[in-house]
């Protein structure tokens, strides 16, 4: 699975996710990636989110929208919301994976509870960051 989140010069955010699914899947299994609110979500008032991981867990936890809701209704920061959803809620579900998120202010979070996540980011004129492991 791959994905991207961004904020532009007008302060608008967007999210995109694309996947080839799981090796050897059958029965037209669909994961969280194309499910708005589970694997992909964007809202200027909160953040844009793209998820990667074991889709069945992400769908049951409605991960992407949950991050947004924690910010909108509970007043959490992006980091707090991501910590709550990825490192606490998902872990309780047994779900492995992570997400990338960005706010309209340009704050980025890339939490994951698996051993690694292929990721990269670039903010304004800062150096490009690339990471795989924790």
């Amino acid at each position, binding site marked *: 699975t791959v994905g991207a989140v961004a904020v532009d*010069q007008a302060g*608008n955010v967007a999210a*995109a996710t694309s996947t*080839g699914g799981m090796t050897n899947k059958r029965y037209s299994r669909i994961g969280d990636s194309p499910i708005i609110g589970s694997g992909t979500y964007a809202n200027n008032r909160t953040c844009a989110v793209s998820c990667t991981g074991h889709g069945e867990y992400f769908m049951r936890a409605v991960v992407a929208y949950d991050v947004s809701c924690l910010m909108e209704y509970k007043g959490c920061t992006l980091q707090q919301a991501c910590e709550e959803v990825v490192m606490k809620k998902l872990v309780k579900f047994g779900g492995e994976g992570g997400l990338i998120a960005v706010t309209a202010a340009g704050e980025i979070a890339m939490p994951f509870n*698996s051993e690694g996540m*292929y990721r990269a980011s670039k903010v304004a004129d800062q150096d*490009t960051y690339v990471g795989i*492991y924790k």
Partner: protein
Amino acid sequence: MHKTAIAIHGGAGTITKASLTEEKERIYTAALKEAVEAGHSVLEKGGSALEAVEEAVRHLEDCPLFNAGKGSVFTKEGKHEMDAAMMDGKTLEAGAVAGVKSIKNPIKLARAVMQHSEHVLLSGYGAEEFARNQGLEFAPEAYFFDKLRYEQWLEVRDSEAIILDHTEKKDEKFG
């Protein structure tokens, strides 16, 4: 003017350092850097966040290293079924496709669903018919073949196991 920012991911899972050689890590790092900088370039030129995420994901879809587009894994039937989604934070408009085959860049189709249909999620043959009507590019089966993905599939083809991007198989059921 707001500060621009972009982040991308190329999958998660059990990626042990032992299974990733220095050479492979260098190749993955270069591919991620290229994709995120392509997206950021769109933002720096005044492009929209929607255009930036599409550009970054398109780069990743065209790279066989990642499980999407050209690098998609094999299904039980030895085919490639892809899903994609896009959402605009300004308007809350969204578009998505599921279970599509032979679409070169599913993320372009997701955006077309968002901007040129009255629906949010299209699937299977219907989504492919919509892609034809929108003039989107298709690719033959051979385009999606990758030796590593094929070998991964061979390991589990005759079993009920399904495997995530970079994770060892687990025998679990979800009702």
